[in-house]
């Protein structure tokens, strides 16, 4: 601990341009990384200690080694990958369906004044309904199979995509459209070369929010009604009172959530740099 604080100190030597100064920045960055690891390590140590001391029953607090072992087994048997693949397929279809519908609805709201007048009040009202509230009704109409999952997740995607598409298009500055008119762009040309690039950051934002909402809703519907998928793995582990399975599923859900978030952030930054290059 003391050595760590030493490396992380303000480093008075760093004022001169000697080699300690050049080392200071990477050292400090490494120190920050290490500091971020302290809390997880401490929690992990507490977990292990609690298991060693048998504070709680194994059904309530499985040892870390058991979780690790289950993770390995589920991974090598391909079971974890199968569940994840099923869940991600559901998310993929829903993002396509809900995102496509949201894009169309948002574009209509953004481009047409009468679409706005007729549809926006209803949309704004219904968008405030929590997605999980729809699920029982969807179960009545669609049963508890794939259709239910895709419909519920699509609804979750639809709302942020529509809102952001509408905002992105409504926020396009008037002069930009006037330039298009000066060039006598046709409607498809205007859409493709003016509206789409100008609204792109907002569209992307909608996609990112939509994917995150999809992942949230997926876990909900899979917990409520499913026979496969990563959420089902949790239900199963819960029913068998095998908490190690529940924790493995949580880790997988967190990892996929993190990966989706990072991938979309990366794509967003690429998009931003492309935009800067364009102007």
């Amino acid at each position, binding site marked *: 601990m003391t050595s760590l604080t030493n490396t992380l100190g303000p480093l008075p030597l760093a004022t001169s341009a000697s080699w300690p100064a050049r080392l200071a920045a990477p050292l400090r960055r490494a120190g*920050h990384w290490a*500091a*971020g*690891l*302290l*809390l*997880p390590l401490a*929690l992990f140590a507490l977990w292990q200690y609690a298991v060693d001391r048998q504070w709680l029953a194994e*059904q*309530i607090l499985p040892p870390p080694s058991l979780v690790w072992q289950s993770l390995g087994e589920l991974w090598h048997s391909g079971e974890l990958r199968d569940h994840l693949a099923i869940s991600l397929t559901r998310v993929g279809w829903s993002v396509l369906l809900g995102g496509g519908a949201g894009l169309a609805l948002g574009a209509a709201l953004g481009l047409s004044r*009468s679409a706005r*007048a*007729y*549809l*926006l*009040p*209803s949309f704004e*009202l*219904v968008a*405030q*309904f*929590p*997605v*999980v*509230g*729809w*699920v*029982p*009704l969807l*179960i*009545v*109409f669609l049963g508890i199979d794939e259709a239910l999952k895709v419909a519920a997740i699509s609804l979750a995607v639809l709302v942020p995509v529509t809102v952001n598409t509408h905002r992105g298009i409504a926020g396009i500055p008037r002069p930009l459209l006037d330039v298009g008119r000066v060039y006598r762009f046709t409607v498809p040309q205007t859409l493709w070369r003016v509206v789409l690039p100008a609204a792109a950051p907002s569209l992307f934002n909608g996609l990112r929010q939509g994917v995150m909402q999809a*992942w*949230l809703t*997926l*876990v*909900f519907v899979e*917990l*409520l009604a499913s026979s496969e998928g990563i*959420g089902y793995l*949790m*239900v199963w*582990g*819960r029913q068998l*009172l095998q*908490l190690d399975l*529940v*924790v493995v*599923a*949580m880790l997988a*859900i*967190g*990892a996929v*959530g*993190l990966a989706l*978030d990072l991938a979309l952030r990366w794509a967003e930054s690429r998009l931003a740099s492309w935009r800067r290059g364009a102007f």
Partner: protein
Amino acid sequence: MTTASRAFRRDYRGLVPPALLLLFWFVAGRLGWTNPTLIPPPEQVLAVAWQYLGSGELFRALAASLARDLGGFALGALAGIGLGVLLGVSRWAERLLGPTFHTLKQISLFAWIPLLSIWLGYNDVSRVVFIAVSAFYPVALATFEGVRGVTRAQFEVARVHGFTARQRLTRLILPAAAPQILTGLNLGLVYAWLATIGAEFLLPAYGDIGLGDSVIRGRAAFNVALVIFGMLAIGGVGVALNRVFRRLERHLLRWRGDHR
């Protein structure tokens, strides 16, 4: 004059889609296009609503759900503001806690439910804890961003005036970050209501029956009219919570003098 009167006149075109939907629903039921057990006619939904209102069951369910929602929200929001301020004020706290916070945030909310159900059981405690967790993240994140937005110059002024640490918190940091904190609280409220209904579906418990419990029981009994009515009630509460919060927000931010 004409523009002013036009601005005050309500645009009724927005009522067309719901009116069409209602009409279609009603006509379809009358003409026997639909199976009445699967899609009950509107008057049946109204009858269920009337029955629920009359017996007081609706108010009991509403009160139970709202108590859970607001209790969990208050806990989560307080913890969120606390952590957000801590992370925003202290670089060290951010380095120590930030990475863990940002990683745990990625775990989809509902994934906590099986764990909570084992640790705390199927009861109101686990439901309220879950609601608190769901309100916590957006509030903490928004508070952190708001506190980070306090400028050095503002801080220097506070120092010149010799503010104590407590004054700095209550008279500089919290007011300066108020717009972001309120945005976070609004989002937290939305998530808390989502979590309330989700928890009532996924953590069935004996005791106070909430709106979500009624709907899920209605579904089990194939009482579709009750399911439809419950869904509308759940949505209505979500809309009402938003409205009340917006009004409160405008009231609290009056001192800033800007109207959104």
